[in-house]
């Protein structure tokens, strides 16, 4: 893990092991979400009844946004904190949340992270300081508190707070940026700009073309990078280093892509560029690049996919084999 300063703002020269690790994280996140997608839709029919099946409720998948989580979390350890959004799986996986327990939570099982009480938008893994929230932008303020605690303890730990570009129009976003800059808190604010807030495009929701320009309003270093895992890795390296060194917060926006609907069942009729979306998939693109540069070959790719598949199927099996919570305990855990 590198925390030194760099003169080249765009990228770092990454060693093959790091590049492979970034690739693996992305493949694991995608494999996981493909499996969730399959299980989610398996028994919603006939038609589509959102309340039916092994995985009922809303489901927000992050396919396309894996580079953000992989690039940012590569600089973190389990001692650092991540507050993710309603679209949390890629960050959870990249930050090392227990995959079995996370899957069990999504399946509403007693063995889940929240004993089946939370669900896919409310994943809490205190062992790696991970949380997320269904109310958008509301994960930003608690991240300040985690950062404050880290700063008080003088540990060099950092808090990463994630929102989408839609959420960046919330008061909580702006209040948090101001406070973090004012108190020089060790936070990295990540904005995943996937161009869409459900059906509303960025240019219909946001007065500036890029949230990175909003950093200036809070006297905070800010940058915007494209959905390239290595560019994200490099930018996050700078941001995390600043936070660890006590130099305060950074705003990092990634222009990413939401390959699938806002939630499962979203027909995306509002989305004119829909036909082009599959070509924006960052994983085959990175695969090709690493192949061209001799880091990957067919065998490594196949093995990576197989390992991810096996890991994910194990987690799904663990979830399915786990008991559902006893209805008599429905009111447990309201208080400690």
């Amino acid at each position, binding site marked *: 893990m590198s925390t030194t300063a760099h003169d080249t703002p765009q990228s770092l020269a990454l060693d093959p092991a790091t590049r492979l690790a970034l690739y693996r994280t992305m493949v694991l996140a995608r494999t996981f979400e493909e499996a969730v997608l399959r299980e989610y839709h398996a028994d919603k029919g006939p038609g589509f009844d959102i309340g039916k099946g092994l995985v009922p409720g809303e489901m927000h998948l992050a396919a396309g946004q894996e580079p953000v989580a992989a690039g940012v979390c590569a600089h973190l350890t389990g001692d650092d904190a991540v507050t993710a959004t309603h679209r949390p799986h890629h960050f959870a996986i990249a930050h090392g949340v227990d995959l079995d327990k996370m899957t069990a939570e999504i399946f509403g099982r007693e063995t889940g992270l929240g004993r089946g009480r939370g*669900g896919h938008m409310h994943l809490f893994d205190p062992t790696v300081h991970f949380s997320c929230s269904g109310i958008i932008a509301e994960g930003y303020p608690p991240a300040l508190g985690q950062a404050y605690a880290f700063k008080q303890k003088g540990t060099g730990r950092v808090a990463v707070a994630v929102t989408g570009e839609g959420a960046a129009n919330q008061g909580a976003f702006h209040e948090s940026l101001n406070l973090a800059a004012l108190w020089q808190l060790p936070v990295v604010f990540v904005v995943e700009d996937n161009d869409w807030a459900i059906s509303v495009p960025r240019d219909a929701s946001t007065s500036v073309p890029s949230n990175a320009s909003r950093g200036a309003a809070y006297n905070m270093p800010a940058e915007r990078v494209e959905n390239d895992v290595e560019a994200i890795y490099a930018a996050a390296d700078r941001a995390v280093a600043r936070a660890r060194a006590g130099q305060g917060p950074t705003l990092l926006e990634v222009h990413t892509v939401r390959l699938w609907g806002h939630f499962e069942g979203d027909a995306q009729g509002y989305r004119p560029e829909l036909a082009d979306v599959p070509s924006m998939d960052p994983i085959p693109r990175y695969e090709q690049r690493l192949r061209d540069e001799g880091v990957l070959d067919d065998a490594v790719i196949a093995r990576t996919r197989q390992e991810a598949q096996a890991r994910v199927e194990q987690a799904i099996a663990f979830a399915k084999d786990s008991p559902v919570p006893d209805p008599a305990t429905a009111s447990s855990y309201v208080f400690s």
Partner: protein
Amino acid sequence: MTITETPTQETGHGSHRLTTAKAMVEAIELEMERDPSVFYLGEDVGPYGGIFSSTAGLQERFGKDRVIDTPISESAFIGLAIGAAVEGMRPIAELMFADFMGVCLDQIYNHMAKIHFESGGNVKVPMVLTTAVGGGYSDGAQHSQCLWGTFAHLPGMKVVVPSNPYDAKGLMISAIRDDNPVVYMFHKGVMGLPWMVKNPRATGDVPDGPYSVPIGEAAVVREGSDATVVTLSLSVHHALDAAESLAGQGIDAEVIDLRSLVPLDRETILRSVSKTGRLVVVDEDYQSFGLSGEVSATITDVDPSMLRSPVARVCNPDTPVPYAHALEYAVLPRQDRIEAAIHRVVRA
């Protein structure tokens, strides 16, 4: 005089079948045609037509200036609606889920609801705040609450909660024409959405043309002599199912659909309980400090001897709505719990 003080009027003669969602949209459409000061704003209300189909087709019809997709900035756009209402427009602002009230509550209860009072009656805020409520499909603790008790507890806003297409249209027309802020809360489970469990009563006959359902008048949706079930929203359907099932066992339950919390139609409740002597209150909102206590007190404040048995409350047991299906069903007031409660009051 506001429309709520006028009797129900039906101008059309025919009727047609609509889902609750489409009935809502039809009301908004009619009012937008009639009154250019009506406009609608909220998240995903444009081309998407509202996440719960509350605005389907309206932007196509009325354009982007009258059906407005907002940024996710609830304080700002709900506050904007307040300001526009103060200037004489009739905005309808949609808060996508009632659960999100926390991010914009100051605009709602300190501004929308208090301006008329603070101005000594000199400033009116004729706006509607629409919002989706309710659970039953594993959407978890931040997307499944009803919270109407919270809105009703804070003075200055009317709170309406339709349970069917007829009321949805008539109450929406009343809400838009009302000179007060009206919170219009629609349960996802009664909207008749294609992607939710099909509730047969979510589709029904709706008169053509405009008509209003007065705000503050409960409906006796099933007459009965043995016990009064007071409820609203999706729970009306569960209560009717429970009543039908108990009818076979010789228990005859009366079911009251409150249709609004503010004003609360205490007369209808009192009239019914004075007849049956027994009361069950069903509320999908949290039990403590809420609707069920208020309805119970409506009786005890006037004449506790009206009751032949203690009031039974079937509510959410002060638990955030759990995600896992079995847990969620354990906290929701569904048919089995309602039936058991009716049994309890009748046998006591």
